[in-house]
């Protein structure tokens, strides 16, 4: 999402209507994207990505409060309460992950010249964070991330998009890709090569005409 104010950010979660299940899912998703973004901020020395991690950490705090309240209200019996308390334990763990991601971005405040070795280490990780530019000749241009199925097709998850000066973090499936977009992606080297060949127009995005019919 683009930069939003605190209230607008929270509106997106619709906490008044969200169920315990919705919030737990949200917390799992956010905690994982936060870790990726935290490493990305170090990798690309990006204050902006680091800022988003801090914002997400605040969001997590609200989600965490909300899930606790909702869980308490929904417990009817002792057994209910016991089960819900372990559910809250899972929520607390995802909050913990988000705090750890917050700690990682605090490294951005350390002296810049002390961090290059981190970038070097992250380049060797099993799953890497990389970036690529979407060229105008690519047939990914103008299509939605979800419609393309970028992650299932290439194994690469788009964790952020930089469009001009603006950032979009954890883009939604409905987001359309545009020529010139800088994609920050996470995955294997091999997946990166595959995605890059689509993004620079060397390869055509594969089409599976029968797929929808089969599913219907």
């Amino acid at each position, binding site marked *: 999402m683009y930069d939003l104010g605190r209230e607008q950010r929270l509106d997106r979660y619709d906490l008044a209507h969200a169920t315990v*299940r919705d919030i737990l899912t949200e917390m799992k998703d956010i905690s994982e994207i936060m870790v990726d973004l935290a490493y990305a901020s170090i990798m690309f020395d990006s204050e902006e990505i680091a800022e988003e991690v801090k914002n997400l950490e605040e969001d997590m705090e609200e989600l965490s409060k909300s899930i606790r309240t909702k869980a308490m209200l929904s417990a009817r019996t002792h057994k209910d309460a016991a089960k*819900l308390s*372990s559910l809250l*334990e899972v929520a607390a763990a995802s909050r913990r*992950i988000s705090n750890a991601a917050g700690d990682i971005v605090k490294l951005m405040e350390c002296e810049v010249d002390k*961090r290059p070795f981190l970038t070097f280490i992250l380049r060797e990780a099993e799953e890497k964070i990389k970036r690529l530019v979407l060229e105008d000749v690519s047939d990914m241009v103008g299509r939605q991330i979800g419609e393309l199925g970028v992650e299932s097709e290439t194994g690469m*998850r788009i964790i952020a998009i930089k469009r001009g000066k603006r950032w979009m973090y954890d883009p939604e499936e409905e987001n359309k890709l545009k020529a010139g977009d800088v994609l920050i992606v996470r995955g294997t080297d*091999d997946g990166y090569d595959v995605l890059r060949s689509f993004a620079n127009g060397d390869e055509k995005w*594969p089409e599976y005409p029968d797929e929808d019919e089969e599913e219907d």
Partner: protein
Amino acid sequence: MDQLDEMLLELKDSSELMIDLAYSSLLYNNKEIAEEVVLMEEVLDELANDIQRQAIARVMRDRDEGKAFTVIKLAAAVEEISDAAMQIAMVTIDDDEPHPVIRLSIKDADTTITLAEVKPGSDLIGKSLGKMRLASRSGMWVVAVKRDRKYLYGPEKDAVIEEGDVVISRGPPDAEKYFQDLCSGEERLEE
């Protein structure tokens, strides 16, 4: 990369594997996987301590406190992630049956976990994970393989899949079906 860098890398990669395994244990109410997460946490605890100790030893040698500070902070943060994984695994261990909503939430997430048995005729048989480029082709990242009664956790690229293996993997929900079908032999690996 020097030894300290390699240790940090291992800490990072392992902490992420632990999270995947912890959610797998919850989703399938699998106490064995949960126990593995607990064991890994102990190992990572030690690893994080070693990293921090080495970093300090280097400050004394090289007088480069900036790098040591960064290393120590990072190791602590990553270790926190492994603690969180253990916290999740403990829910699997302590509960007879986790709250059904937990499973639904994991299934609804952007990244989910799936499990499939490799059936006779599957394209995966006899190939290594790296060679068939399973992650980039299927969108699913293998976190564990169960062969007979033993688990292989966080298999390397050279791990070869055999008939009868149960493969647990992590990825986007829309990749789940293709992965399942690859394991069952209903789908072929596309070139």
